[in-house]
């Protein structure tokens, strides 16, 4: 099984298209298609003629993701992590337990850490969402926590890393001088199955140093 995947990746790479890039492209294409379907239906007068009940939600909504305004079509009960990954192709946000337990899906909403798996996309309309893709500066400067993770080799497999980094960003926004214990408490809602907690906390302390300019 794993060999098949490797072969597929190598084959695609030879053609100049990585497997991941191909999948992302397919997602973007299908999103565009759904949007035009919706608009066509609206122009036909059928969908817009209905007067919705107070508070009824529309499917086509505008989200503010990483400082950009994105028009997306979202089913009412879709979670933010699903929209980020499978509609917008922002696969840096991981889905671990999908039950608000492991923290792998942590993103910032108006600067506050939230489990993306347990937040309806419709409830973040009008709010600023930041995912791991939005941390890096335009000139490629890494966020202090990203830099610290590189310096300290904070993670082993790193599946949980995006969530830990996002929650640490929230911590450093609140407190640039946390103790190791405070950092551990703040990150208690993020789980690492490699149990790299010691290195992760060392990275957090280094990130706080970088943030303070030490």
């Amino acid at each position, binding site marked *: 099984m794993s060999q098949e995947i490797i072969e597929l990746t190598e084959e695609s790479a030879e053609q100049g298209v990585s497997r991941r890039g191909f999948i992302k492209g397919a997602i973007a294409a299908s999103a565009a298609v759904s949007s035009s379907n919706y608009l066509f239906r609206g122009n036909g007068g059928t969908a817009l003629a209905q007067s919705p009940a107070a508070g009824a939600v529309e499917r086509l909504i505008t989200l503010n993701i990483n400082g950009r305004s994105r028009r997306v079509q979202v*089913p009412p009960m879709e979670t933010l992590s699903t929209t980020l990954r499978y509609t917008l192709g922002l696969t840096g946000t991981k889905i671990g337990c999908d039950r*608000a337990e492991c923290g792998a899906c942590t993103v910032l909403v108006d600067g506050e850490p939230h489990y993306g798996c347990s937040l309806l996309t419709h409830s973040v309309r009008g709010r600023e969402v930041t995912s791991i893709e939005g941390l890096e500066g335009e000139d490629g400067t890494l966020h202090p926590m990203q830099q610290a993770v590189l310096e300290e080799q904070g993670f082993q497999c790193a599946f949980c890393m995006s969530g830990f980094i996002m929650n640490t960003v929230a911590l450093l926004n609140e407190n640039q001088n946390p103790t190791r214990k405070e950092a551990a408490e703040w990150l208690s809602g993020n789980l690492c199955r490699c149990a790299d907690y010691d290195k992760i906390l060392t990275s957090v302390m280094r990130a706080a140093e970088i943030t303070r300019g030490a």
Partner: protein
Amino acid sequence: MAVIRDVIPQLELFQPSSADDALALLAEHGSDAWVYAGGLDTLDWFKDRVKRPRVVVDLGGIDSLREIRSTSDGIEIGAMATLISVINNPEVRSQFPALAYSAKSAASPQIRYQGTIGGNIAQDTRCWYYRDGWTCYRAGGNICYASPPTAMNREHCILGASRCVAVNPSDTAPTLVALEAEMVVRRGNSERVVAAEDFFVGPEIDIERMTVLEPGDLLMSIRVPSKWASARVYFEKVRDRDSWDFPLANVATAIRENGGNIEEARVVVNGVAPTPVRLTAVESAITGQPRNEQTAEQAGNVSIQGVAPLTHNGYKVNLMKNLVKRSIRDEPLA
């Protein structure tokens, strides 16, 4: 461990911007409607397909429900106030530090930024048989899977069970009962105010509900009267880890002393029974006594009278005894 499925089944979502609109929707859809607050309890049910309402009413857009304000007699906390906003509210911190502390004991930071105080007190039980969709009493069936000797019941009741042995898992609920809080509930245009200790419903009254809230009802706010403001209120929670877990047991004790003796006391435990439980026998036993080691010891002994542990939760008896004792003897942790 829950089975991870693709997406949540299709439901009709409403996001009203006023409480009146929300109440109208709840009246219209009755028991087909689900009230959605922070969503953390809700989405697990939906993802697992165990609860399948037709309509979901999301209260997130109703700003008035998030307000925390001072009143002529204490503080009124909107049901949609997040746990973090309760924790950080200056009035709550100065007048009712034990409430802020119990809110901070709940869940993880991410959940405290999203979960609401209304959701924390009205949340459903964590019994895994029930959560996994077994047709137990609470799910409308005619058996309890958690009470037989072979069942996994380490986290279940030692008090007050009636067929169902699931516990109330809230950390803020016992503190609110100790503080004599009141729940403001609206239904259409009519409003009723329920004392916190009467808000929770045990299985002997209705085995399928945790609170008095019925379809069509909306918890609007929680009033915390100034009676126990700045009083000695002790909260402590015990869980398997130092953070991010539901309570095995917790205790909230409010005490007023006069002339070296306990003049009035309210002692409430949770995580040990289907509802937060006021230990009135303990309260009577310590009233009029000096607050010291001996009184605390006696309180602990009285607290466990009548307990009925299951196969794997006998440890909760001593746990509760010692928590009650400490809540009277020791200085508040908050």
